[in-house]
Every structure is written in structure tokens, then in C-alpha cells.
């Protein structure tokens, strides 16, 4: 057992490692002699060290009122760190700032995971979001600045709404703990705080910022957003769970699933299509959380929540990185790829089938668990709507596979395959393995 921090602060050990890592990266960047490759390696090493630290940290330790953790928070921290690894590996930073920003953002997510009251939750939220705005601004696409500004204003507004909700909650209960209150003021506060969580998750109708931001960012960054930030938003939501009614969440979930899927059908730009599809997936996560809440936060339902995010980590990372490695951005460019690039087309086909939830892939196991928990929780109508949403989403996933395999290519492919193809292939293989053996 490694003890960096003495009890009662030992829950913060992974975060401490990340903070030290981020400072080291910044310091190394300040001295001109250290190359960017080394800086990236340092950032990656600090993420790995944080993972190691996470393994050795007992998740049941808690020091109220500020810190507390449970198995869900512990497992989610692993997800955050894993989501950051491909980004750090693939990003091409101009200087030392972006890697440090990524580390800071993951640190914020970790704070959400161990937060024990609303104040800590808010600090984690802002710590996670601020670097994200900057990372969007530093993307290479022409819309990067526009996207970053949109993201910043919308995100800050959401943060302000959370503060407002917190204030109302405090006014009603006189505490910053997560106790529900029956006071109208407290209910209004809970409503505002839940709205912030749904905003971060990208749930309808608070999704408006998401497609623009996802389209403006580099694919590897979008992969991080759709996995790490989404997982953090889900965790954020579960922390607020005592305050929210499950049926409302379930209906929001059903709407989100259907809306994301229907809008994605019409998209021409792949990154935008995947952005809407990630909204649809956020709906499934929301449904899982609703089922978890409706069953009195049963451990089995929390498994469904976690498994969905773990499966989505592989599928989504793989798909966005595929866009990067193949240099494809429009849907039309997919035509004929099945013949031109058999291996990478097959990898994408597996990832898309997994996103669609066709067995024997991880996506199916994830959807199946969510459906089962939703049924057990008695959320019948949202469940059927979610099923129909899955059908609609199959329309575009399958449509992409059709474009790749059944259509003739219109123009030759320019770029050579990217070295990061290995990551995509690994994600595809992981999607199948997790589907065959979900207990892994």
C-alpha cells in the first residue's frame, strides 16, 4: 500500500498525483530543453501513476463532510483515466499547455468522484470544464474558436445555474449536504442542479451546445469528451440522485434517445453525426441512472450504469479515432472504403455494430443490461421508446456500413493510414471481447 496522503485525505491520492503531474508538465514546458514528446510521455506517465494510485486507494474510506466515495465513484475514476490515455497519446500539441489541461480536467472529474457535498461537487465540475473550453479553443478546425466560445458561455451559464440551485438548496435546508428537502425552495434548487447535470451530459433539451462543440474539436478530443466528460456527467448525476425523481429522468432519457437518433439520421458530417449519436447514447446512460435510482440504488443496477460507460468508452474512442486515422470527415467519403481499406473498414464496422447494439458486441451487452434494469424498475414506456430509438439509430450506423461496403468509391483516398490505427483496432477487438465475455 502506498500512502502519499495520510488519512483522512487518502481518497485524494490519484488527484494529487495528477496535480503533481500537471505542474511537472508545465515546468518542463517552461524550460526550453525538454521536447514535446517527453512532455506527452510525462503526462501519460502521470495518468498511469494515478491509475496505480487508484488501485491502492481504498474506495470505502471517507472523511465527511467534504470527501466520500463508493465503488461507483472508484470505478468511474478508472474510466476517466482510461479515457484520457488515448487523447494524450494521439494529441499533437503545439506546446506544453494542452497535456497539462487534459490532466487538470481529469483531476476535476476525479474530484467529482470523491466529493461528499455540493461545494466539492461544484469545484470538481468547474475544474473539469474550464480546461475543456480551452482544449476546444486550441483545436485545429476553423470553427474551433466559435465552438469554444459557445461551449464556454453555455457551460458557464450551467455552472451559474448550479450555484443558484445550491444557494436555494442551502436556503431551504441550511446545509450543503445532499439531503433532499420537501421545501419548495429546496425542490427548485434540486431542479436547477439536476438541470446542470443534464446539460453536461447533453440530454435533450439541454443538448444544444454539444453538436457544435463536438464538430469543432479534433476527433481525439471529441473522443475524450464523449467518453470522459460524459462519464463524469453521469457520475455527477448519480451524486445528485437523492434529489431527483426517477420517472422524470426516465422520460428525459427516452426523449434524448429518440431525439439524438432522429437528428443523427440526417447528418452529412461524420463528426456531427457521431455527436448526435452520442446524445442518443447519453439517453441510454440516463435511462440506466433512472433505473438505478428507481430501484433504490441497487448494486446490480449500478453495474449496468458502469458497464454502459465502459463499453461506450471503447466504442466511442474507437470510432472518433477512426475518423482521425482515416482522415475522413464527410459521410460521402465513406463510400467504397470496404474495398480500399479492408482492415480499417472492418474495424469500423465492428465499432458501428457495437454502437448500434447488435450482438455479439459490447454495445449489445450494455444495452441489454440497461433494458433489463429499466424493466425491473418498472419504466415500461420509456423502455419501449428507448427500444424504438435503438431501431432508429441502427438506421444510420447500418447506413454507414452500407456506404462503406455496398457503394463504389467516388474518389481515391489521399492520406496514408495513421499510426494510431492500432488503437482503433484494439478498441474494435475490445468491443467484441467485452460482448462475448461481459464479466471480464
Amino acid at each position, binding site marked *: 500500500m502506498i500512502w502519499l496522503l495520510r488519512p483522512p485525505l487518502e481518497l485524494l491520492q490519484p488527484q494529487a498525483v495528477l496535480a503533481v503531474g500537471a505542474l511537472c508538465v508545465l515546468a518542463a514546458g517552461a524550460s526550453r530543453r525538454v521536447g514535446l514528446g517527453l512532455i506527452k510521455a510525462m503526462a501519460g506517465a502521470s495518468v498511469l501513476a494515478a491509475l496505480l494510485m487508484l488501485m491502492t486507494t481504498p474506495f470505502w474510506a471517507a472523511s465527511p463532510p467534504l470527501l466520500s466515495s463508493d465503488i461507483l465513484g472508484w470505478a468511474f475514476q478508472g474510466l476517466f483515466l482510461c479515457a484520457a490515455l488515448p487523447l494524450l497519446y494521439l494529441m499533437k500539441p503545439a506546446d506544453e499547455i494542452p497535456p497539462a489541461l487534459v490532466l487538470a480536467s481529469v483531476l476535476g472529474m476525479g474530484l467529482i468522484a470523491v466529493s461528499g457535498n455540493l461545494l466539492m461537487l461544484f469545484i470538481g465540475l468547474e475544474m473539469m470544464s474550464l480546461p475543456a473550453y480551452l482544449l476546444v479553443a486550441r483545436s485545429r478546425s476553423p470553427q474551433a474558436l466559435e465552438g469554444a466560445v459557445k461551449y464556454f458561455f453555455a457551460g458557464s451559464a450551467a455552472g451559474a445555474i448550479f450555484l443558484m440551485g445550491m444557494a436555494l438548496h442551502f436556503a431551504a435546508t441550511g446545509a450543503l449536504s445532499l439531503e433532499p428537502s420537501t421545501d419548495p425552495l429546496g425542490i427548485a434548487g434540486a431542479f436547477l442542479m439536476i438541470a446542470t447535470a443534464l446539460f453536461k451530459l447533453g440530454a435533450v433539451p439541454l443538448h444544444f451546445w454539444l453538436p457544435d462543440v463536438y464538430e469543432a474539436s479534433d476527433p481525439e478530443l471529441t473522443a475524450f469528451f464523449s467518453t470522459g466528460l460524459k462519464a463524469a456527467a453521469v457520475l455527477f448525476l448519480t451524486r445528485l440522485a437523492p434529489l431527483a425523481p426517477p420517472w422524470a429522468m426516465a422520460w428525459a432519457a427516452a426523449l434524448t434517445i429518440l431525439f439524438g437518433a432522429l437528428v443523427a439520421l440526417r447528418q452529412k458530417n461524420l463528426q456531427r453525426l457521431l455527436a448526435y449519436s452520442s446524445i442518443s447514447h447519453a439517453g441510454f446512460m440516463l435511462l440506466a441512472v433512472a433505473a438505478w435510482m428507481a430501484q433504490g440504488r441497487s448494486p446490480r443496477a449500478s453495474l449496468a450504469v458502469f458497464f454502459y460507460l465502459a463499453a461506450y468508452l471503447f466504442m466511442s474512442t474507437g470510432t472518433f479515432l477512426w475518423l482521425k486515422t482515416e482522415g475522413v470527415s464527410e459521410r460521402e467519403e465513406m463510400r467504397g472504403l470496404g474495398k480500399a481499406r479492408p482492415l480499417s473498414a472492418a474495424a469500423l464496422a465492428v465499432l458501428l455494430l457495437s454502437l448500434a447494439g*447488435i450482438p455479439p458486441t459490447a454495445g449489445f451487452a450494455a444495452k441489454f443490461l440497461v433494458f433489463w434494469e429499466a424493466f425491473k424498475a418498472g419504466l415500461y414506456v420509456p423502455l419501449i421508446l428507448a427500444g424504438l430509438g435503438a431501431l432508429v439509430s441502427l438506421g444510420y450506423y447500418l*447506413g454507414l456500413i452500407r456506404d462503406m461496403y455496398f457503394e463504389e468509391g467516388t474518389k481515391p483516398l489521399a492520406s496514408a493510414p495513421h499510426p494510431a490505427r492500432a488503437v482503433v483496432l484494439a478498441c474494435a477487438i475490445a468491443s467484441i471481447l467485452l460482448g462475448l465475455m461481459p464479466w471480464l
Partner: protein
Amino acid sequence: MSAHWLTMLWALPAVGGLAALAGGRHSRWVALLVSAGTLIYSFSFPGGAVISSSPTGPFGISYSLACDGLSLSLCWLTAFLTLICVIASWKKDFTPGYWAAFLFLEAALLGVFLARDLLLFFVFWEAVLIPMFFIIGLWGMEGRRKAAMKFFLFTFFGSIFLLIGSIALVTYHHAATGIWTWDMAVLKGPSGRAGLAVFAAMAIGFAVKIPLVPLHTWLPDAHTEAPAAGSVMLAGVLLKMGIYGFVRILWPVFPQLTWQLLPWLGLAASINVIYGALCAMAQNDLKRLIAYSSVAHLGFCLLGILSRTPEGLLGGSIQMINHGLTTGTLFLLVGFLYDRGHRRGLGDYGELFRRAPWMTFFFGFTMLASIGLPGLNGFVGEFMSLLGMARALPIFALLGVVGVTLAAAYSLPAYQAVFWDAPGKGSVSHLVTDLDAREMALLSVMAGLMLLLGLYPGPLLRVMQPFLLGLVP
């Protein structure tokens, strides 16, 4: 018998499919050897009840396979038709993916018929879609892209209901007994409105596959646009999955409910028989005609098994095998004809008996088997099914008899137009040559089986018997 022996039955073609993918120029040989090997291996199981099961896993889900006479006969059908398909496509210049797709399809289909765990069944059920999607979409006719999408989306629509229904079934079973299990042989459905809802959800899943009117609209497109061998597998085996689901899952799980719903389900099956036949009469495309005739024939299967009399259950089940043989052969013949003339319309040919006497013979023979001429296999299944229904609800048996008459009314004119009537303008009859030795051999085997099952169906019926007779109330 250990579970591994059954696992090998579906794993053999799956591994063979991977080998065929990697096989390059030799993949057709891989496909031939593996499909032949699977067929031989499938005969190594004794014809009685073979059960094998693995211990229950997490949440009551387990990897468990079971094989009794009903599963076994459908496995034989699958393995046999896959081999036929491989040989039938032998001369064509296909990429390795084609051969691999057929082997993967075979693996998934065998898995469907072998699975004992409901979730495992569903996984195989869905896995069937992927190779079939590529078979239609990559190697099909002009409208293949749309047909492939339609096929996948339609079936997935049914699958969602099947999945939700299965989840509901398992959850209700747990509520009633306190045990989590996905074992088909153990599960019992809830009663009352919940039971009706679960039954309806699962029945929709199966009905899309059969397909029951009005959920049938994917079928004509998929069958018409698929390559010939793909149509053989679609009609020959994939449609049987729906009937199999009814018999294997819904009947034992909802013994009371199926009885109460008999009038409604019987009505649906009768509509299938009549509607399919009427649609077939209106077709001008030979492949589409046969596709619609499948709708009618599957209605007979359903009528038989609905009656829950020994004759009906056995007749409906043997009709599944019969339909696989006859309709498979018809699709093969249309495929051979299309290879020569590149047309499928009834008016595009005429007087083929002069140029292709053997083709004329086999087509006529198979058509008669399909109509239900006594002495050939179709008669056995249809007669037994109708007999069973006559004992349960005679009105539907009467409608079925009308369907038999209609079958003659759509088959014979089509046969006459293509093979006997004088060719019209723009006929491509002159392009048609008679069957070659490979095609003759294939069709002789099929025709021989039709005759054999028509004259002496006893052994096959005895193999199927044990499970089916257990369903008789």
C-alpha cells in the same frame, strides 16, 4: 454428452468462416470442406433427446446448449442447405467474403437451433442478420442495398420486442419463483394481462421472421434481391426461425395462453395462407412469386403447430423441412435460369422445354412438391397440418384447403408461361442451355429427398416426435 460436442457443431463453421476469410483463392474449397464436414458431423448425434447444459452463470444467464429431435432436424436442414448453396455458387467468381459469410450464417443458424438459454438464443438470432445483410447487400441484384437495409431494420424491429419480451419473461418468472433463470425449458410465463403483453412482444419478434402478414413486407424484397444462394438460405432456414421460436419457446412457456389465443393466431395464419397465395398470383417476377409462396407455406406450418394436436405439431414441423427443400430448390432453379438469361420475368421466357428439358422436369417436379401433390413431401406436411387444424378449429382448416387450391393456381400458370407457352417478343429463351452435370447432381439429390420424404416420412417424424408430443395438452 458433454456440451463441447454441441459447441463444436456451431463452432466448426464459425472457425471455417475465419479460415475462408483468410483463404484467398482457396476459400471456396474451405467452404466446401467445412460445410460438408459440418453436415457429416451433424449426423453424428443420435436422433433422440440430447441435452447438455452448463451450470448457471451470473443473473441466471448461462452458456447452455441442448439438442433434441426438433433442433437436430433443423440443424440437418441448415447444414444440408449450406452445402447445397456452396456447390450451387461454385462456378461464380466470388471474393472470400462470400464463402465466409455463408459459413458464418450457418454457424449462427445452428446456434439458434441449439441454444437452450434464452439470451444465447437471442444473441445467435441477431448474429444471423449480419452475414445475411452482407450476402444481400454485396452480392445481390440491382435493388440490393435497399433490400439489405430493409431486411436488417425490419428484423431488428422485431428483435427489440423479442428482447424486451424475454427480459420481461425472465423478470416475471423471478417475481413468481424467486429464481433467476434464462433456461427455456424452465421458464413459465406470467398469467393475466402481463402474460398477454409478454406473449405479444415475443410473438411480434417471431412473427417478423416468419413473416406474418402485415409484418411481411421485407420478405419479397429481400428474397428477390438476394443472390440465388442467399434466397435459398433465407427461405430455406431463416424463416423457420420464427416458427421454431413459436414451438420451442412460446408453446411451453405459455401453455394456457396459446390455447386461448388460438382463434386469433389461427386467423393470422389463415390470412397468411390466402394472402400469400393471392399475392403470388399477381406476380410477374418468378423470384417474387416464389417469395410470396413462402408466405403462404409458412402459414401452413403455423396452422399445424397452432392446433397442438399430434398430427398438427408433427405436420407443421415436417413442413418446415419440406418447405426448406422445395422452396430452396425453386430458388436454385430460378438462379440457374437467371445465370443464363439474366431475366426473371414470366414473360421473358417461353417454350423452355425444347431447349432445357431437364430444367423443365426439375422445375415441374419441385412445383408439384410445393403445391402438395400426394407422393411428394409437400403433401405430407400440409395434409398433417390441416388434419390437425381440422380437429382443433375446422374453419381454419377449410381456409387452408382453399390455400392449397390457390397454390396450384399460382404455380401452374407460372410454370406453363416459362416452360411451355410460346415465347413472346423480346424473349431470352434462346440464351438458355440445359443444366450441366453439377447442377443436375444437386437437383437430383434435392428431388430424391423430396420423393423420399413424400413416400416415407416416418423416420424423420420419429426423430422430431419426443419434444413435440410433449406439447399436446
